[in-house]
């Protein structure tokens, strides 16, 4: 298409000079470039700079290149980083296990109703994230619809509780991010050439073998994309931890939010955010190297 555009057309030659054509893409992209440059890239540097300042909200902050904040932040809060990684990892794995069979069924046996199933899968996105989490808390609450009923039937001991535990946080994250896993899985499974699957059958592969040696390997890109799309937001999340986890199960996001918005300890908060970001960038780049960004973007 680009070649087409660059061909000499009389209509264009009449109106635009070569210089104008060369400038056109930069003119088109400059508002977006400026906005993202000023409010996305520069703030990253501002965050780095803020992390190396010392002072307090009352006396003001001065740039002192205090690199000591990083060992301090990691030493003091590594527990929360590890917990976030654990919760996020377990939740991401749970969404994979829960959604794979479903995505498989929709892609291979959904028939004419595929679009309807996909819309059902997207339904949670029409409800605000915070309300969804609150409603999930309702379902998990000690005397709520689910466990209250089970307890009244004496199927669960009355001391049984999920809300305000790590399990509740993980289940909330898994609930909230499940569609981010299910959709890319569906897309890759749907793209698999059916004749390849049929060929496996013709060559006397059992259904099990067909799945393990043909379908599963071909769906690996979808698994990678799904893990990326669930793990990244899950590790940084703090809404689930604060609504479902009580006070004992805080994740790194809770700490960052508290330090920024309530304790005004900007250098520490910025250092923690920067460590979180650096860890994720390394992870994402490793991923992009394996997959290529284009392929991940396809699923975003």
């Amino acid at each position, binding site marked *: *298409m*680009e070649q087409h*555009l660059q061909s000499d*057309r009389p*209509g*264009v030659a009449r109106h635009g000079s070569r210089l104008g054509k060369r400038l*056109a*893409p930069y003119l*088109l*992209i400059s508002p*977006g*470039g400026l*906005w*993202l440059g000023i*409010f*996305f*890239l520069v*703030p990253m540097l*501002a*965050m780095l*700079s*803020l992390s190396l300042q010392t002072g307090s909200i009352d006396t003001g902050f001065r740039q002192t290149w205090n690199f000591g904040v990083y060992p301090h932040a990691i030493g003091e809060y590594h527990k929360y980083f590890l917990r976030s990684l654990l919760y996020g990892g377990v939740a991401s794995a749970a969404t994979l296990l829960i959604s794979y*069979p*479903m995505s498989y*069924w929709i892609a291979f*046996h959904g028939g004419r109703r595929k679009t309807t*199933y996909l819309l059902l899968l997207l*339904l*949670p996105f*029409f409800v*605000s*994230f*915070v*309300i*969804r989490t*609150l*409603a*999930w808390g309702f379902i998990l609450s000690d*005397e709520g*619809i689910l466990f209250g009923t089970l307890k009244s039937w004496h199927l669960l001991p009355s001391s049984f509780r999920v809300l305000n535990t790590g399990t509740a946080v993980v289940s909330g994250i898994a609930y909230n991010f*499940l*569609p981010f896993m299910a959709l890319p899985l569906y897309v890759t499974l749907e793209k698999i*050439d059916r*004749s390849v*699957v*049929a060929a496996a*059958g013709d060559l006397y592969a059992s259904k099990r073998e067909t799945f393990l040696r043909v379908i599963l390997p071909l769906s690996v890109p979808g698994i990678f994309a799904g893990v990326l799309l669930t793990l990244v*937001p899950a590790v*940084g*999340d*703090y*809404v689930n931890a604060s609504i479902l986890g009580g006070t004992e199960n805080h994740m790194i996001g809770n700490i960052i*939010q508290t330090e920024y918005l309530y304790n005004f300890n900007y250098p520490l908060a910025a250092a923690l*955010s920067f460590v*979180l*970001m650096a860890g994720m*960038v390394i992870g994402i780049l490793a991923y992009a190297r394996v997959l290529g*960004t284009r392929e991940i*973007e396809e699923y*975003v």
Partner: protein
Amino acid sequence: MSESAVRAEEVAGAVATSILPRKPQRRWTRFILPTYTGAVMVYLVSPILVMILYGFNKTGGLKVSFKWQGFTLAWYRGLFDIPNLTQALKNSLFIATVSTLIATAIGTLVALALVRYRFRGRQVADMIMFMNIAAPEIVLGAALLSFFVTLGLPRGVLTIIIAHVMFNIAYVAVTVRARLSGFDTSLEEAAQDLGADPWTTFWKVTLPLIFPGILAGALLAFALSIDDFVITSFNAGPVSTFPLWVYAAARVGVPPQVFVMGTLIFTFGVSLAAINLLLQRRRVRPALAEASGAADDVS
């Protein structure tokens, strides 16, 4: 997935079953996956049902309670009885509208540049957008707050709008680009050959053709803006939006009006999506029939 491929698979399956000896089909197992899928769907939808249901619960106090105490429409009638909540919802709608308009305009231009031209810096632009979408929200919010703190800019509606435009540009650009890449440029050439200047060509030919893509991008941006909690909470200062208000209220118990507003927003969004789906089907079906007819002619 083309229909002919499905047919080929069916034929292959039929041939296989007729010629090759097969294990007897285990009847009941074929119900496992559909039942399982249904169960996961119920799991996904159950919090939504809870939200809708508890908007009708006749609670004693003004807080949502777990116990079902009878059906009432009181919370629908008194939807705007809580001034702070109403104000927060208004803020959300205003911020979403303004930021959607800005992000859609800017994002569409970015998409046009990326699809139409090959230029130095194109890959950098791609990379920045990818990073912007992939970055965890908390980092975007924290970085922007650090920037505003450094500048000494007080947080409020303006900073929220700046933030929302920032995270929406890439989403709009990606959505519009997806629709643009199948665009037939010969129509534009035809317009120019017929003497239209580039400006007229853009308004009369290009824009109407890519409008569905722009609309899809705008709807996505609006939805993301009105629902955003994390980035907003970092950059809101004293201003409250609907998600921020609900989150703050969650500690002491939310009033049923929150669930009612959630239900109304949900109904509105789903209706829009359903209408869009039906319109698409109407457009796609004849086209499909035509395509398969043509395919039959060829074979």
